[in-house]
């Protein structure tokens, strides 16, 4: 077997690193997690000429090796630990031609670790338009490495990059900068105390906040005969080191890089003048949000209706064509509706991630951070909280993970705590079905009333998130230094392939992650609804027939319905639902909704699936779920169960209650304690109960 070359792709955010990764690996990639932490691990295999193969690891984007986040720690940890199985034979630093100077900072740091480092300058196709010229040969000489011009967008230079990877052994290991000149005496002492270690690695470990694999930080700082420096002194040295690196970079670029300033007067400034404008910036941002939600609502309703009907037919068909029995019932009443309950989400998740990827790829998301920072800070959040809050409209899980780039712990914690209030896609089917039932399908000022209600639900979710952030900000006492510095990347046309890969990845993560839970619960629910304890359930037919003996007008069908309903009432799930009915009746719900609420604590999206299961078990009438719900009667008040009042109450309950095990699990992982997920579970659910109670009692 050919030897596999371990390659690490490293680079600043917004350099098109992922595009290069996609070009190198094609669809030959997988996304997983690093063991024990939730940082995404993207790796892939790249076929090289001469029968060679490269294992490519796409490391999280970072500006330097001075870590300020979990993602960045990981980059450093890997690069310091030679015994890690992913330790690179060669590092490829991806940089953006327009930000070469800043990108080279990271390059010099990685080169100084003694790893062969290739510099790949991406977006080379833009050079001419931006008036940039670069003397590649001379730059190679200055940086003592191989420099490759690539354009992932135009598919240029990728073969040169592969060639450079094959020849990595010819790249010099010589460092760029001698960091020890910032404090010669100190570094000399360090060298004496640890003669066998690379001095620059030691320095990195000392200045970071974490322990790294084989080098223990405490061991260094507590070593004999070695005087440590205070944090401030170290920070000053880091400042000096950074300045020193920039001096080296300026020297290397002085006679190699030419930029015609006039050519650079461009799209950016014109677009920024409007998009970050005090008034127009906000108007455009809200306009875009409105457009996205209207689009998601109207576009995805077609595939969703189709999926709904297809699965209803499939269920019917399997029942008619398979031999009758427990197994067929399990398939037609448990498994098929369960899978349907997962598939129906795909259109919305795909559309939402489609829009989010476009906003990120174009560089517009950073403008939103800029516009919203001050406003968000009033509520204890950061401009960077906008991205998690917006992602939260797809799913709270990636949103909680997306808070990692908020450096300030208090802002980050508050963001994590309030993100589950934003309207995730799992609530969407619940909202859609209830809105369709209780809100008239009419237009108001040219807008569809149902669409407006849906948007209102999003605003309620967002507003509650912001409001609770404000309260948390008042009560949480956490001291913090904040380092809000964000890059404002160039505007770019989004790359179709990147967006497609992102949409597929996120949808897959949902189907195979949350989907598994949903299917499992659907099956459990079916079992609970199909079996019951004791005599009443088993002798249902007999009991009902005897009871209805005097009533001879009953047709065969009506009798069957009564039997089925009696069975359901006496099944395990019926008993559970009945048990909580007194608690949910004041909110306008019956015991069937009670059951759906119980199962929703595993995952909200189970709500519709649960009702589907309950109703198809409760009657043989093969109608779509919506019609079935509309026909449901309120057992206490009479009249339809889903009225305006109970519908609104249910909408509000789903808007506020913490009903997602997976979110609780991810919050535990990110905050490293059960305290915060428990605060969410109890606080949010209690709030939901109270609000829904008031809503129903006022509106009924």
């Amino acid at each position: 077997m050919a030897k596999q070359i371990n390659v690490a792709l490293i680079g600043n955010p917004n350099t098109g690193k992922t595009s290069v990764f996609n070009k190198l690996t094609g669809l030959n990639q997988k996304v997983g997690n690093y063991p024990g932490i939730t940082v995404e691990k993207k790796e892939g295999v790249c076929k090289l000429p001469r029968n060679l193969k490269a294992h490519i690891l796409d490391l999280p984007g970072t500006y330097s090796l001075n870590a300020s986040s979990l993602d960045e720690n990981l980059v450093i940890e890997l690069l310091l630990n030679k015994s890690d199985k992913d330790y690179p034979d060669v590092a490829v630093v991806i940089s953006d031609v327009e930000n070469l100077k800043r990108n080279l900072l990271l390059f010099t740091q990685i080169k100084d670790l003694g790893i062969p480092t290739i510099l790949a300058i991406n977006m080379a196709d833009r050079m001419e338009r931006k008036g940039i010229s670069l003397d590649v040969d001379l730059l190679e000489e200055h940086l003592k490495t191989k420099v490759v011009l690539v354009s992932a967008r135009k598919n240029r230079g990728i073969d040169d990059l592969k060639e450079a990877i094959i020849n990595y052994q010819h790249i010099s290991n010589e460092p760029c900068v001698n960091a020890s000149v910032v404090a010669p005496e100190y570094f000399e002492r360090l060298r004496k105390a640890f003669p066998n270690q690379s001095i620059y690695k030691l320095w990195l470990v000392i200045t970071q906040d974490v322990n790294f694999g084989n080098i223990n930080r405490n061991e260094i700082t507590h070593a004999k005969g070695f005087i440590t420096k205070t944090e401030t002194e170290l920070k000053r040295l880091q400042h000096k080191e950074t300045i020193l690196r920039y001096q080296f970079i300026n020297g290397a670029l002085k006679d190699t890089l030419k930029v015609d300033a006039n050519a650079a007067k461009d799209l950016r400034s014109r677009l920024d003048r409007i998009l970050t404008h005090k008034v127009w910036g906000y108007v455009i941002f809200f306009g875009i949000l409105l457009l996205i939600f209207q689009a998601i609502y109207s576009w995805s309703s077609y595939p969703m209706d189709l999926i709904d009907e297809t699965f209803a037919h499939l269920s019917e068909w399997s029942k008619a064509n398979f031999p009758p029995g427990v197994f067929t019932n399990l398939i037609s009443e448990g498994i098929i509706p369960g899978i349907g309950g997962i598939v129906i989400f795909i259109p919305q998740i795909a559309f939402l991630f489609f829009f989010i990827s476009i906003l990120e790829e174009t560089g517009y998301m950073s403008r939103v951070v800029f516009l919203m920072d001050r406003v968000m800070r009033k509520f204890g959040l950061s401009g960077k909280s906008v991205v998690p809050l917006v992602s939260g409209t797809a799913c709270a899980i990636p949103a909680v993970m997306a808070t990692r780039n908020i450096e300030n712990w208090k802002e980050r914690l508050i963001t994590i705590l309030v993100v589950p209030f934003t309207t995730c896609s799992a609530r969407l089917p619940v909202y859609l079905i209830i809105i369709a039932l209780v809100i008239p399908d009419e237009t108001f000022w040219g807008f569809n009333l149902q669409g407006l209600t849906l948007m209102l639900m999003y605003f309620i979710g967002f507003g509650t998130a912001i409001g609770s952030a404000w309260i948390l900000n008042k009560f949480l006492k956490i001291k913090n230094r904040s380092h809000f510095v964000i890059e404002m990347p160039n505007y770019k046309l989004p790359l179709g392939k990147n967006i497609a890969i992102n949409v597929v990845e996120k949808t897959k993560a949902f189907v195979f992650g949350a989907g598994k839970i949903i299917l499992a619960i659907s099956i459990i629910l079916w079992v609970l609804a199909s079996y019951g304890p004791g005599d009443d359930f088993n002798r249902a037919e007999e009991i009902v027939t005897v009871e209805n003996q005097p009533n001879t007008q009953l047709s065969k069908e009506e009798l069957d319905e009564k039997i089925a309903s009696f069975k359901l009432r006496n099944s395990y799930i019926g008993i559970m639902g009945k048990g909580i009915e007194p608690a949910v009746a004041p909110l306008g719900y019956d015991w069937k909704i009670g059951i759906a609420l119980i199962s929703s604590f595993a995952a909200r999206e189970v709500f519709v699936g649960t009702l589907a299961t309950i109703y198809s078990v409760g009657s043989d009438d093969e109608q779509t779920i919506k019609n079935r719900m509309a026909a449901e009667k309120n057992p206490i008040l009479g009249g339809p169960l889903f009225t305006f009042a109970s519908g609104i109450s249910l909408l509000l309950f789903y808007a506020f209650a913490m009903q997602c095990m997976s979110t609780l699990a991810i919050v535990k992982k990110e905050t490293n304690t059960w305290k915060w997920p428990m605060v969410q579970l109890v606080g949010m659910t209690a709030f939901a109960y109270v609000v829904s109670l008031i809503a129903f009692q006022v509106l009924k």
Partner: protein
Amino acid sequence: MKHTLANLKRGERGIIKEFSEDNIPLKLLEMGCLPGNEVEVLQIAPFRDPMYLNVNGSYLAIRKEIALLIEIDPLV
């Protein structure tokens, strides 16, 4: 009067002076905001916070609290 970045209006420029504060985040230096570099204010969000800058070809946004720490020589 001490001139800081926070005093600059939209479209104004200055040269960053030597840092006298220890609280300046390292990240700022890493992003190219170094003493001696020219800085231009491209846009200011409402309430003068945050500020959108071009420092020597790097485009960044920083909060007012940090802008207040960076002394500059204004350019006319």
